[in-house]
C-alpha cells in the first residue's frame, strides 16, 4: 500500500472522526445528565442541516453565517423536547432515574415523527448547501487537507474543550454536574432540576445546530441522513465512555481512522461493519469505554 495514500486516508479519517465526535458530544452530555438515550439525536442534526440549507435558499445566508440562527434554533427545539415531551415521564418516575427503556421508546417516537415530517415537508430529494467562501485545501506536506472538514474538526475540539471548561468553572455548569451526580440532592441544594434538564438538552441540541451549519456544504442533505449520524454517535459515545466529553472525541477519532484505513482494503460498507466489530471488541476489553470510569 502506497504510504502517501495511506496517510491521506489517516488524515481524512481523523477529520471525519473528529466530526463524528463533535456530533456525538450532545448525546453524551444528555445521557450523562439525564440518563436518557436520545434516539432522536441524529434527527436533530438533520433538522439543523435543513435549517442551514433553507436559510441559504430563502434568505441567501451563507451556511457558515447561519450558525447564529441554527445554534439558538436547535437549543430551543432541544429545550422544548425535554420540557414538553420527556419531563412528564421523569415527573411520573418516583425512582432516582428514568426507566431507560421508557425514555428510549419516547425519544424513538420523536425520531419517527421528526424524520417522517421532514420527508413530508422536504421530499426525498438529496440537497446540499454551498458556501461563497473560497476554501481551498491546505497542504500538509504532500497531503491535501479538505478545508470544510478541517473546520468541522476544529469546531469539535473547540466545543469539547469549551464545554468541559464551562461545566467545570461556571455556576450553571456546576449545577448541571450536581444534577447528573444526584438529582434529589441537587434539588435540595436549591437547583431547579427540571430547568437544568431542559437547558442540558438544549445545549446538547445546540451543538447539532452548529454542526448542521458546518456540515451542510459537504454532507448530502436528506430526510434520512440523521439516522446514520445518530447510530454513529451512539457507537462513538459508548466506545469513548458514556458521559465523557473527551471520550466522545477520542471515540470519534478511533472510528473515523479505523473506517478510513479499512476502506482502503475493503468496500466502505464492509468497513462500517468492521468498525462495529472493533466496537464490540473494545467494549469486551473495556466495558466502560475508552475514557469512561469503571
Amino acid at each position: 500500500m502506497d504510504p502517501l495514500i495511506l496517510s491521506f486516508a489517516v488524515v481524512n479519517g481523523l477529520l471525519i472522526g473528529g466530526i463524528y465526535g463533535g456530533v456525538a458530544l450532545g448525546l453524551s452530555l444528555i445521557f450523562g445528565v439525564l440518563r436518557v438515550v436520545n434516539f432522536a439525536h441524529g434527527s436533530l442534526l438533520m433538522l439543523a442541516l435543513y435549517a442551514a440549507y433553507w436559510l441559504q435558499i430563502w434568505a441567501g445566508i451563507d451556511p457558515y453565517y447561519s450558525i447564529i440562527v441554527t445554534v439558538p434554533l436547535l437549543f430551543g427545539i432541544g429545550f422544548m423536547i425535554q420540557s414538553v415531551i420527556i419531563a412528564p415521564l421523569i415527573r411520573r418516575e418516583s425512582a432516582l432515574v428514568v426507566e431507560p427503556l421508557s425514555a428510549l421508546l419516547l425519544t424513538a417516537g420523536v425520531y419517527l415523527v421528526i424524520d417522517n415530517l421532514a420527508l413530508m415537508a422536504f421530499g426525498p430529494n438529496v440537497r446540499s448547501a454551498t458556501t461563497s467562501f473560497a476554501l481551498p485545501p491546505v497542504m500538509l506536506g504532500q497531503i491535501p487537507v479538505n478545508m470544510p472538514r478541517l473546520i468541522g474538526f476544529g469546531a469539535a475540539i473547540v466545543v469539547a474543550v469549551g464545554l468541559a471548561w464551562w461545566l467545570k468553572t461556571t455556576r450553571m455548569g456546576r449545577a448541571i454536574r450536581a444534577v447528573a451526580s444526584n438529582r434529589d440532592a441537587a434539588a435540595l441544594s436549591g437547583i431547579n432540576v427540571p430547568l437544568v434538564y431542559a437547558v442540558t438538552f438544549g445545549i446538547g441540541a445546540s451543538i447539532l445546530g452548529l454542526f448542521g451549519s458546518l456540515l451542510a456544504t459537504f454532507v448530502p442533505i436528506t430526510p434520512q441522513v440523521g439516522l446514520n449520524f445518530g447510530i454513529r454517535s451512539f457507537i462513538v459515545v459508548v466506545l469513548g465512555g458514556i458521559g465523557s466529553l473527551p471520550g466522545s472525541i477520542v471515540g470519534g477519532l478511533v472510528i473515523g481512522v479505523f473506517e478510513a484505513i479499512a476502506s482502503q482494503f475493503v468496500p466502505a460498507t464492509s468497513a462500517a461493519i468492521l468498525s462495529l466489530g472493533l466496537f464490540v471488541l473494545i467494549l469486551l476489553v473495556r466495558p466502560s469505554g475508552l475514557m469512561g470510569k469503571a
Partner: protein
Amino acid sequence: MSQPALETVDLHAGYGDVRVLNGVSLTVGRGEIVALIGANGVGKTTLLRTVSGLVRAKGGTISLFGERIEALPPHDVTAAGFVQSPEGKQLFLNMLIEENLLVGAHNRRAYERRKQTLEEVYELFPILAERRTKLAGTLSGGQQQMLAVGRALMARPRALALDEPSLGLAPIMVDRLFEGIRKIRQLDIPIFIIEQNVFQVLNMADRGYVLEQGRVTLTGTGKELLENQHLKSTYLGL
C-alpha cells in the same frame, strides 16, 4: 413575628396508595433544637421529604415563618429557607469538597454571600478546609457527614433539618458532630433533627416529638421525654 420557624398541621403524605403520614402536627420554634424520634420505617424521612417538596403533601399545611410552603417545588423550599441534610448524606461524590459546598449555595440569596459562608463552614469543620480540593468520595464517613451538614449550611438556612446525621459514625465522630450542631444553634438557626441516638439527642434538644403510626404520639421537653416510661421502654430499651 411570633410564628414558629416551621409548623406542620395535620400533614398527610405517602407513596402511591401507601399512606405514611396520617396527620402530623408539630412546630419548631425560633432558636430551638427539636428532635424527632421514631422506629425504623415509621416515616421520619418521609416527613422531611414532604416538607422539602420532594414528596407532595396529600393534605394539611406546612408553614415556614408563617409562609405556606407545601405547594412549592424543592428548589423554592430551599430558597425560602428550609434546608435539610438528607438521610444517607447524598453527596456529589465525584465532585470536589469545595464544589459540594458551592452547589449548596446555589439559591440566589446564598450565592451572593457564598465566600463568607464558606469561611464560616470551614471554621466550623476545619477538616473540610484542609481537604477542599479533594473529591468528596475520598472523605471518611464522619467527614462526609460534616460535608453534608456544611453543604446545607451553605444555603444559609432559616431553619435546618438533619436526617440521622450520626448514622454509621464512630462514637468520637458522633461527639464531634454534636458539638458542631450545638455551634450551629448559636448561629441562631433553629434545628429539626432526626436521630437514632435517642439519649444523646434528647439531652441536647429543647423539645422532642415521637412519631408512631403516622402520627405524633408523644411530645415534651427533652428532659420530660427522657423520663417518659413509654419512650424509655420502646426507644431506649430500659
